[in-house]
């Protein structure tokens, strides 16, 4: 047995050994069969768990999004309504809540949208010049361009004067701004703590603390901190003559408050992973760069960044997916207010669910799933080429 393959089992009914003794264990064919089945035996419980806990609820919630809950004597009934819940969100009375109030395009918006449209056309045209699989590439790029164009259009129409962001744009803002700031701060802190400075162990522990606290606890903490009338900083606000200013009454003030809480909570996650990536760099490369006379920025950009880029890509991906699901902070901190200004998609779904609009809630959740999938695919497309292309 030198080729690494398992020894073949004797056939059932094999003769007794020359000594005349009969094997006492199960026939080898049966053993082999059991060994083969064992794989399935070990695999199936996990598959069944997955099916019941993930796949089944996924299909059930899809079905729920096409129904309306009704209470009938002795229980409840689900009435089939087709796409009514989706129509309500995209074209009906919930459109402003979900998509926002679309402002009439101003000259500035027209120019901005025109520039984006030209950029996307150029982007599509380039795919035709690619020698391998031009049609498949065009299809993929077209979908990508359509998604980017739709988001740009929505942002332009709802964020500029006259418009009002709905829960979709609010969530995209939380994701875009929140993840970018968290990454920037996390990287900065990680670079600092990777240096040989006094008290670095202490700072590492302190920077990690927010991640250990439950999100609801953080939301309540920020609610107290940001209470201008009774909070611990109330005397400071009064001293500064800002007692009459209220972040809670201003849509962007409240959104910024939510984002500050989110950044405070999740920066440590970025920090700890990036710190590990920074400290796993081979010191020889850094020493060689120093010997070659590279300054700090050049060392970071040419040596460190390429090495932490794969970790960055994964880290940001995880945070993007998580950030889309933000619910605790806006729910506790502002109840989604003022108005619906701080309501995320998940909170939108939760509020619908809380009022037993189960179908509407499931429809929001499915649209969120679609948005997250598109965002992740776009992100992967963006980073894959950067990471795989030779520099």
């Amino acid at each position, binding site marked *: 047995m030198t080729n690494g393959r398992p020894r073949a089992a004797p056939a059932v009914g094999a003769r007794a050994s020359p000594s005349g003794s009969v094997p006492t264990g199960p026939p080898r064919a049966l053993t082999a069969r059991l060994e083969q089945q064992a794989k399935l035996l070990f695999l199936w419980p996990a598959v069944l768990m997955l099916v019941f806990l993930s796949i089944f609820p996924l299909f059930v919630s899809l079905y729920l999004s096409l129904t*309306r809950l009704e*209470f*009938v*004597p*002795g*229980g*409840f009934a689900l009435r089939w309504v087709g796409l009514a819940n989706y129509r*309500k969100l995209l074209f*009906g*009375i919930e459109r*402003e*809540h979900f998509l926002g109030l679309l402002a009439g395009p101003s000259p500035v918006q027209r120019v901005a949208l025109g520039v984006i449209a030209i950029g996307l056309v150029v982007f599509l045209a380039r795919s035709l010049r690619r020698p391998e699989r031009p049609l498949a590439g065009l299809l993929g790029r077209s979908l990508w361009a359509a998604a980017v164009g739709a988001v740009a259009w929505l942002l332009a129409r709802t964020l500029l004067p006259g418009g*009002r962001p709905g829960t979709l744009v609010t969530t995209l803002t939380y994701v875009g701004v929140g993840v970018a700031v968290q990454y920037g701060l996390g990287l900065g802190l990680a670079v600092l703590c990777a240096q040989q400075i006094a008290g670095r162990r202490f700072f590492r522990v302190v920077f990690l603390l927010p991640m250990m606290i439950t999100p609801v606890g953080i939301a309540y903490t920020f609610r107290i901190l940001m*209470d*201008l*009338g009774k909070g611990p900083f109330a005397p400071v606000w*009064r001293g500064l003559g800002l*007692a*009459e*200013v*209220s*972040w*809670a*009454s*201003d*849509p962007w003030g409240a959104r910024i408050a939510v984002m500050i809480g989110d950044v405070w909570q999740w920066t440590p996650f970025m920090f700890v992973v990036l710190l590990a990536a920074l400290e796993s760099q081979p010191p020889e490369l850094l020493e060689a760069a120093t010997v070659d006379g590279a300054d700090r920025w050049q060392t970071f950009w040419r040596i460190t960044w390429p090495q932490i880029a794969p970790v960055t890509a994964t880290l940001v991906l995880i945070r993007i997916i998580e950030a889309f699901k933000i619910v605790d902070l806006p729910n506790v901190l*502002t*109840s*989604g*207010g*003022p*108005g*619906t*200004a701080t309501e995320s998609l998940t909170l939108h779904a939760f*509020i619908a*669910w*809380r*009022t*037993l*609009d189960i179908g509407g809630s499931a429809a929001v959740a499915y649209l969120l799933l679609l948005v997250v999938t598109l965002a992740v695919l776009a992100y992967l497309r963006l980073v894959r080429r950067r990471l795989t292309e030779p520099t």
Partner: protein
Amino acid sequence: MKRRLSLRMAVLWAAGTLGAGPAWAAGPFEGVSVNILTFTGPQIAEPLQRRAPDFEKLTGAKINVITVPFSDLYQKMLTDMATRTNSYHAFVFAPQWLADFATPGYLEALTSRVAADKALQWQDIAPFFRNFSAMYAGRNYTVPVDGDFQMVYYRTDLLAQGGLRPPETWDDYLKIAAAFDKKDLNGDGTPDFGSCIAKKRNAQSYWMVWSVAGGFLQSQGTKQGSFFDLETMKPLVGSDAFAEALRVYVATGKYGPPDELNWDVGDSRSAFVTGRCALTVDWGDIGTLAIDPKTSKVMDKVGAVILPGTHRVLDRKTGKLVPCDKTTCPYAVNGVNHAPFAAFGGWSGGINAAAPPRVKDAAYAFLSYMSQPAQSNVDVTIGITGFNPYRTSQFKSLDLWLKAGMSRAAAQNYLGAIAASLNSPNMVLDLRIPQNQRYQQVVLDTAVAKLLARQTTIDQAVTEISEGWEAITNELGRDKQLKAYRETLNVER
């Protein structure tokens, strides 16, 4: 000791009426555990939790009070019963949700139990709570433990200093609020507020706005209703009258705290009793919170008055505002149309129809115990309970209130304001049609919150509420909803 014995007798009597026989005498509910769901306190949950051990000593029944945030209460109750989880045996909840709980048979009808329960002194409960709040479709489903009307509270000392009278109209309210805004009202050296109203989303704001709107929308008596047209079920919010009410509601914010949009009643009550506000709109709780020596800085400085009214009311034929006269405002006082809002209806106890029989008996005995005068007459005088007077005897007996620490003048003023609301022929009933929670707690609350946050204009808010309510009515069936609406107003045609 005497009182304790009388309580024991009362409970035993109530239990005995349920037919359990002689076994009741020695811990009739020994071994029985009752799960009661209500909202996160301290109000409402506090008296239930405080009195549960006493009840256990008397009857042997263990009462577990489970609390959830108010915004989750309706959904928790409905899903628990609809999915037949039935983890809760009884509820202390908003009786305006009865349509959704009674119609599918989730709640136990209590008609026969109440009829047989002399200790409850049912006839002592004011007719509005006994015949309206506790009833649905001719059957009794709840035992009231609270009485709810919204009123305006004012600082008597401030108004006296300023030579002002309590507000009769909403314009008066705004003038008084403007007069005291940004002045130090409690002597702590910091400027305070003319008006404090709970305007937080997903809290109580949608009742507050209706307290303002009621006077503009309803003038021909309680049976006229204030939410929908009685012929078409079209929402009355799509009118000049409601737009004017929104204008007033938004204007109160000019004299309120900067983060008023994030205030619920806990915040506004705390601010008022610590002397930070000249005016507020609230249920009866302020009256008793103001006499709590531990927290109140406005002891004997608080007055209550029926909700301010209007000089102009809605003409339903044209959708326009018209001046009050004998025809348009037959119940007007001094030319002002008052429409006190029976918001919420008063916390009430109901029983899950699917609970085991012995647990139902124990649950009913506990609810009866909580509502019986011996307990209730004490609880309604304590601010933290969230229970407000709802028994005729509680309105008549000044001794209760004097014993609780209220001055005679304050007690007469407080009870007088509630009585004026309760006895008004133009009292506004809260919405009690199926899925009223979606109309109010979802559509109305969200639209008002957006308006207050300046996300929308008054016209946009009016359109949003009208379209949202129409969509729900169309979804649930216009005829069915109209029939239910007429029935809740007891309109016979």
